[in-house]
């Protein structure tokens, strides 16, 4: 008997049946003394608690990194990382910027114009084939 072919694997698409937010850990690096970290320190003091409670599925780590610009590093379930520099940003600007981690997952930032609509059902009557008579 010929060897059995390997069993197929179902297609795992996030959002089909169950949606799992892809961001799993955010590490905040800041410097105690530098001016560029002032906005991030302000964020820690005012908004971080609320932000962490709004995203209970994300592990938050605050790690001082002296004499360097402030960074926000996001790690995703796929293992990829996105590093955002938040130097000289206010607390509000930082919150807007890190939406890139919590909402856009690990996809690269794509230009909005090219690509258009992506659909799994591109045509109502089906795509033309030479084998169909209609």
């Amino acid at each position, binding site marked *: 008997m010929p060897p059995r*072919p390997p*069993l*197929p*694997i*179902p*297609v*795992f*698409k*996030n959002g*089909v*049946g*169950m949606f*799992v*937010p892809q961001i*799993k*850990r955010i590490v905040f690096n800041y410097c*105690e003394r530098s001016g560029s970290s002032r906005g991030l*320190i302000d964020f*820690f*003091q005012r908004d*971080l*608690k609320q932000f*962490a*409670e709004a995203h*209970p*599925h*994300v*592990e*938050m*780590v*605050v*790690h*001082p990194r*002296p004499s360097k610009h402030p960074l926000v590093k996001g790690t995703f*379930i796929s293992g990829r990382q996105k590093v955002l520099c938040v130097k000289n940003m206010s607390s509000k600007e930082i919150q807007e910027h890190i939406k890139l981690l919590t909402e856009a997952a690990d996809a690269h930032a794509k230009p909005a114009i090219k690509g258009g609509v992506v659909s799994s059902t591109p045509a109502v009557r089906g795509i033309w084939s*030479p*084998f169909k*008579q209609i």
Partner: protein
Amino acid sequence: MSCVRSSLFALARPAAATFRIAQAISFRALTTQAAAAPKRGDLTPAQAAFLARTGFNFSAKLLKQATTHKTYKDGKVPHSEQLQYFGEQVLDLYVTEYIHAKYPNLPPATLRDAVAAYTSTATLSMLGKSIGVQDVMRWEPQEVSGKDSEARMQAKITKALIGALYKAQGAVAAKKFIHAALLAKDMDLAPLLPLDEPKRALSALLKRQGRERPVSRMLHETGRHSSAPVFVVGAFSGLDKIGEGAGSSIKMAEYRAAKDALLKYYLHTRVNPPLPSDTEAMPHAERNAYVGAPLGDTPAIL
């Protein structure tokens, strides 16, 4: 939460301060009743994040046990082997009843293969990866493990988590999770079907069903004497067209038409099928009035 403040006011302290969420708010709670929050005092941030992401309502002790493999600390701490076995049985039950109800005309060998495919190591490791199980699993890679050891471990821990879910939150929650996380993902069953002699199989099938024997009729053809002919052939039972195939020769088109007819029959799908496990969530009166889905026929023997 006070550990963040203390690090801000201490100058040049290099230690990392991790943020502990006192209460992991699960906004995707799987149970219908509001369960009392179990003791969650000694969860690590990664574990708390995992519970919030999946919506599981485990105590810290249960989560620790479910995510610990027996290789961790040589089995001196409670490990997940029992829960793993439990989870295998739970998975087998819900996956089998769903596939059997969804595809009533599937041959028995294909049903077995489909269940095996949905509960295989590869599939369960992908399921585990999709919920982020690699951050919470505790294990020790052995020397003779091989290159797929991490994937195998993810599959085992996923099974243990499903067993723990069933044990802690009951059948309804476990079924909801299995349906949402695993059974909602599509899998093409065509490679698992016995389609090697389609015309013969189609003949036997129609004879068993008491329908007219299959006949191939040309629907459309073009370029017969050229280097690229196209023949479109339909497989008919009497006046009903049961399959269609196209090819560059009449024989090829006939073969494909018979195959198409068999695929349409075997993969006939019942949408939102009534499942026997639905009765677990029904009130008493409705449960007594439950009538199962009609049985499909067994396949023709060649």
